[in-house]
């Protein structure tokens, strides 16, 4: 069922990572993602893996949810690693027709797979430990300087948080509409691409109609609750940087140094 997607779900908690300032978490994630793609040898890769494991461990969210978030991308993972496996350069160690396997290819496949896994796990760690409201709030604050060039920062943040709020609701609705159309004999599981796209119309049209109706009602409800844009708004959960966040930045700095040192002193394998 479409509802079983774990990616993007929030698990309330009181772990170290939960308590970090969401702005810090976003910046840390961006920093970490960059460093993931700066790993060129197995030592730096190991450092990244260890750091990811540390994040998962200190988030207090059960590991099974992290695995669930990986399940969603397993297909992409397999495809990219297989492609990389056969696109290596250098001396082939095994060849069959035009398909050849090289040491470089194997290394590439391993690196790509582990990098993507770390990327997903680290991003999941952010969404698992940060409520959508905190997340959008943080983005809003980080982008605040853009207000000066009349970029609608608050509006975009509000749109994002509403979108996140309604994803599960709309998924549930999709399920319902699909069942209803199947009950009228809609055939969604057979035929060629064109037939399948056509078969989606009875689901997509009601879904859009209902999304518009919802949007209208939500707007009314927001107005009823005195919403009038970002100016003059306060927040219940005010966010501020603390010592904890400083420590987390130091940890990230350490890993960055580690990776850079590895890259300088150990030869690259890809």
């Amino acid at each position, binding site marked *: 069922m479409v509802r079983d997607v774990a990616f993007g779900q929030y698990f309330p908690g009181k772990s170290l990572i939960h308590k970090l300032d969401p702005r810090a978490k976003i910046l840390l994630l961006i920093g970490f993602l960059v460093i993931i793609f700066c790993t060129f040898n197995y030592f730096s890769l190991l450092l990244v893996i260890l750091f990811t494991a540390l994040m998962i461990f200190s988030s207090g969210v059960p590991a099974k949810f992290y695995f669930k978030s990986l399940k969603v991308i397993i297909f992409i993972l397999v495809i990219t690693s297989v492609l990389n496996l056969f696109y290596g350069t250098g001396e082939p160690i095994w060849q069959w027709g035009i398909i050849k396997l090289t040491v470089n290819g194997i290394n590439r496949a391993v690196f790509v797979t582990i990098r993507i896994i770390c990327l997903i796990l680290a991003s999941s760690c952010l969404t698992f430990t940060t409520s959508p409201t905190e997340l959008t709030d943080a983005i809003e604050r980080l982008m605040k300087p853009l207000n000066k060039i009349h970029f609608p920062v608050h509006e975009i943040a509000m749109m994002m948080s509403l979108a996140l709020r309604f994803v599960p609701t709309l998924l549930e609705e999709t399920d319902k509409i699909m069942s209803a159309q199947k009950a009228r004999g809609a055939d969604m599981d057979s035929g060629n691409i064109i037939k399948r796209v056509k078969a989606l119309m009875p689901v997509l049209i009601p879904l859009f*109609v209902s999304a518009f109706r919802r949007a209208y009602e939500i707007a009314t409800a927001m107005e009823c609750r005195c919403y009038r844009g970002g100016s003059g708004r306060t927040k219940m959960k005010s966010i501020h940087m603390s010592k904890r966040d400083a420590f987390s930045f130091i940890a990230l700095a350490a890993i960055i140094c580690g990776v850079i040192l590895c890259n300088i002193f150990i030869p690259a394998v890809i």
Partner: protein
Amino acid sequence: MSSVLELKNLSFVYGQKTPFEKRAVDNVSLSIEKGEFIGIIGHTGSGKSTLVQMLNGLIQPTEGQVLLDGEDIWQNSKEIRKVRFKVGMVFQYPEYQLFEETVYKDIAFGPTNMGKTEQEIDMAVRKAAEFTDLKPELLQKSPFDLSGGEKRRAAIAGVIAMDPEVLVLDEPTAGLDPMGRDVLLSQIVQYHKKRKNTILLVSHSMEDIARVADRIIVMNESHLVMFDKTREVFSHGRELEKIGLRVPQITKIMLELKEKGYDVPDGILTVDEAFSAVSSLLKKEGKIW
């Protein structure tokens, strides 16, 4: 009479072998005769929605069988769509499934999927529209321009147009006002009388169920707890209350009266029945003539 639907030890488990495993329907066996009007009651989460979705193969049972006219509907899983034409299903708030440009085309969606000829489809659409009292001029309108009640009826017509042997309706009157509820319920009763097929009605309104059902299926915590004649089920008012269900107000009033020692019959279902019971008592005592 022969049974049209038979459920044999039917169970369904959600999320099997995961931490969220939940038995939504547990070992339900029952049989429904041709032409019956069945009410299904149970509070939210009792398993009634899962149960009805197994009747037309939208959900495949984890254990047990659904026999339609004596044949297991999952015998040939490739043919499961044919089962859905025989067991029509109207979901809650069915108007949210409307999608075509015109009401006519929307009602025709089911019959078209069945592979009927244009003539047959036309017949089916017009008949279904008549059953649900949709005026012919509405058929060429966009379904999104109809009023709330009309949309509901158009959506129901879309299922009736497949001319199912068994029609399942999941809370067809939810969200309508009293007049709308009344009208729709009478139309369903009229349809049942004319078409003489089997109807299963899921509802939270005990007054509605009391008015129309021959027999009632009572679900509680994934189990079938009662399946009996309407009067019989509602005379067990206290047991129903224990599982968080209620009986029609009038039934409850007469039940309490009986418990206080007055001589009134069991399982009174309508105000008229209650009135005649009370007035016959009054007559006996000579208080009215």
